[in-house]
């Protein structure tokens, strides 16, 4: 009896403990003891350009926006799309989605969040007067979204409608199977009309900003810190463990690490170049490095007299040893890439080249043949343009040395300030240029925009009409497997034209204190909401 009783007491306490955990935070694993003080300081890499979700463009600004606001859907710390403001959604026909909002979702001032707020938020985001830099990127997924952003259609023509107080209908220009993924971006979320109209352009300031996210803005000292605190009005406030988060805007990687070492920062945004191996040895429990959907690549200008020859582009790509580049040059855990679509992206497979598996001698011999056929002799000069940075310089010197030693080509390295490079690249005034891209959402189309005909993001000037047709067909396909097959086929076709030299897929080498829980390393867009994090007793 006694034995039985102690067993039942134990069982009851386990159930209670589990219950307590479940109520406290669904994701804190059983057995993890939480610290009494739930405060986190994380460096965000730069000062946000705005806290207005419609204007947020940088990674840093969007990180904070995800805490202060909640879109219809959200990505959890594993990168899975989970309900956000909308508790459920369904696709009623290939181009129509219906999202049902939570009844208990409130703005931080207690006002209920309604379907009208979502419609207002999206129309405001696409309004030419708002001039959001993301308008054409995300507007493309809504019927008449881009046309409205360009002022060619009225805002009321956008495919967004409040069916009733808690139901939003979204119409897309073509079947967008991954729409719930896209709708997790705060640009496409609700906006507090009542607060914006009351405070005008000052509405994002502390004391005025009204959000519907898990946190509220407490303090904002430009270039110093942004402090947010738990929002008691948030519908899931019970599951939010952190009580206060301080975002730092430190750009200098070494200053960031020093603050971390002195205990004033729990989260180094990104380790400075060349230090990953050192910290991996010194602080093995703190170093986190997980794959991210981002691509480092070189653009080849298809309009350049030398680069317009596909054989030249192919030869230049073939001889760069990505394995050495990843292991010895950048040495920060990134993986070799041979496709514009990064491995792990939904919607298409990362393609590769047959020669990627060949021994280097064979690759070099083939590349030399291609160059000879193209009439480009050893000793010829090519020009590589990059923005001034130690990291890019190291990579550029490596590429130049590969082209010199393996193909006999002399590379002139030209470095410039970032904005100047952007201008040159966008205007097509270069031969070979450094480039990079981080996915806006987890679908292959975010990467395909880099190489599609006429795309704003295509700096290479290439165009493969047949592949374009396949992408169009894929996007119209109702079956996800069929779509994936068509997009992968299109990717392969484009990559066989060699518009770019894919080099490495990104990782996020950083330091995070071992007591920061919820940092899973599985969120491939690196979008960790503070809602999912907690401080372990230490």
């Amino acid at each position: 009896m006694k034995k039985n009783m102690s067993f039942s007491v134990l069982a009851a306490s386990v159930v209670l403990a589990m219950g307590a955990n479940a109520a406290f935070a669904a994701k804190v694993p059983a057995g993890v003891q939480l610290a009494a003080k739930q405060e986190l300081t994380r460096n965000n890499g730069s000062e946000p350009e705005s806290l207005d979700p419609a204007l947020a463009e940088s990674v840093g600004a969007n990180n904070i926006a995800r805490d202060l606001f909640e879109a219809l859907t959200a990505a959890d710390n594993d990168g899975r799309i989970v309900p956000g403001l909308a508790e459920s959604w369904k696709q009623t026909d290939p181009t129509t989605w219906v999202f049902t909002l939570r009844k208990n979702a409130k703005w931080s001032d207690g006002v209920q969040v309604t379907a009208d707020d979502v419609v207002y938020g999206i129309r405001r985001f696409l309004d030419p007067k708002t001039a959001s830099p993301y308008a054409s990127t995300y507007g493309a997924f809504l019927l008449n979204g881009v046309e409205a952003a360009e002022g060619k259609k009225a805002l009321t023509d956008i495919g967004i409608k409040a069916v009733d107080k808690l139901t939003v209908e979204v119409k897309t220009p073509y079947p967008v199977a991954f729409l719930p993924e896209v709708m997790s971006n705060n640009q496409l979320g609700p906006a507090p009309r009542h607060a914006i109209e009351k405070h005008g352009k000052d509405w994002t300031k502390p004391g005025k900003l009204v959000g519907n996210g898990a946190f509220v803005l407490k303090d904002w000292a430009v270039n110093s810190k942004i402090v947010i605190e738990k929002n008691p009005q948030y519908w899931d406030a019970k599951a939010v463990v952190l009580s206060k988060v301080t975002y730092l805007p430190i750009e200098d990687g070494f200053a960031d690490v020093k603050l971390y070492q002195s205990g004033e920062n729990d989260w180094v945004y990104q380790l400075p170049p060349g230090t990953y191996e050192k910290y991996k040895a010194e602080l093995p429990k703190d170093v986190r490095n997980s794959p991210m959907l981002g691509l480092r690549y070189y653009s080849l200008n298809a309009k350049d007299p030398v680069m317009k020859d596909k054989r030249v582009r192919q030869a230049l790509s073939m001889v760069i040893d990505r394995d050495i580049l990843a292991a010895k040059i950048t040495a920060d855990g990134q993986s070799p890439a041979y496709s514009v679509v990064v491995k792990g992206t939904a919607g298409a497979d990362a393609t590769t080249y047959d020669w990627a598996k060949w021994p280097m001698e064979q690759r070099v011999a083939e590349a030399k043949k291609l160059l000879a056929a193209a009439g480009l002799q050893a000793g010829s000069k090519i020009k590589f343009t990059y923005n001034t940075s130690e990291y890019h310089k190291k990579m550029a010197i490596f590429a130049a040395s590969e082209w010199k030693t393996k193909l006999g080509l002399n590379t002139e390295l030209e470095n410039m300030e970032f904005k100047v490079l952007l201008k040159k690249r966008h205007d097509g005034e270069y031969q070979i240029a450094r480039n990079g891209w981080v996915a806006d959402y987890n679908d292959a189309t975010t990467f395909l925009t880099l190489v599609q005909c006429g795309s704003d993001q295509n700096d290479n000037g290439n165009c493969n009409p047949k592949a374009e047709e396949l992408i169009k067909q894929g996007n119209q396909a109702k079956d996800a497997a069929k779509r994936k097959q068509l997009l992968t086929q299109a990717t392969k076709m484009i990559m066989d034209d060699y518009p770019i030299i894919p080099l490495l897929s990104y990782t996020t080498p950083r330091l995070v204190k071992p007591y920061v829980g919820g940092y899973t390393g599985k969120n491939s867009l690196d979008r960790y909401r503070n809602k999912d994090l907690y401080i372990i007793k230490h």
Partner: protein
Amino acid sequence: MWSYAFRRVLMTIPTLLLVITVCYLMLHATPGGPFDSERKISAAVMANLQAKYHLDLPLWQQYLYYLKSLLQGDLGASFRYADWSVNDLVANALPISALIGGTALLLSVVIGIVLGTIAALRQNSLIDYFVMLIGNLGSAFPSFVIGPVLILVFAIWLAWLPAGGWNDYQVHYMVLPIALLTFINVSTIGRVMRGSLIEVMNSNFIRTAKAKGLPMRTIVMRHALKPALMPVISVVGPIAISTITGAVVTESVFSLPGLGKLIINGASNRDYTLVLGLVVLVTVVAVLINLLVDLCYALLDPKIRY
């Protein structure tokens, strides 16, 4: 002297106009604009953005528009910090830079003059070698080397002070940046003071004073110090301008939210209004400090009359 000062202040207006015009043209001639980013913005959206900030107007109209706002005390909207006006940004950053820079300047002038004087009077003694060592170290090592060393020792090893950042004017966040700026400035001021005083001490009127049997203290305090300070005042002018209006490197090393940070971010992001606003501020400060320096000359040297 007051009418001279008034005329000098009036001269600020054409100086400012010239500086603004040159800076305005240079900014617009630099390739790349405020809205060029990794994600290229479609032509239509770019047009929206440019219209929002009046960048779609002809350059001369934008210029006149800017001058008009400036006359009303409005430095315009920032492109890089879209939620803030340049006035807000400057109002937040100026007190921080001025407090850190001003304190460092005051300390370095006092310490520099005292150390320089002692070194000059005890030429080739241990204290002289010590002052010269500080002078040479401060000149040889740039602040981006000394700063991290200070952080390593005082913030990481000893854990006495924060490694950087800023927290509502709390003193311990200011100690290291002020120490770094003071050290760098003392090295210059101390060296100049030492050299200048040695030269003065070898001049004829000091020899006469010594021959008259005046005590050393009187010779130094009453006769040598004033003329020896003239070159020091000359170097303090430019030091003051750079220390107060944004010690760019120091602010970066210690992650301080001062003017230096704004200048760097403004320039690299082609934030035309922010850069121009800061240029206006730096110009005004420079003119005023130069005026102060000139007035100090008149106080120190009776031959100078305005």
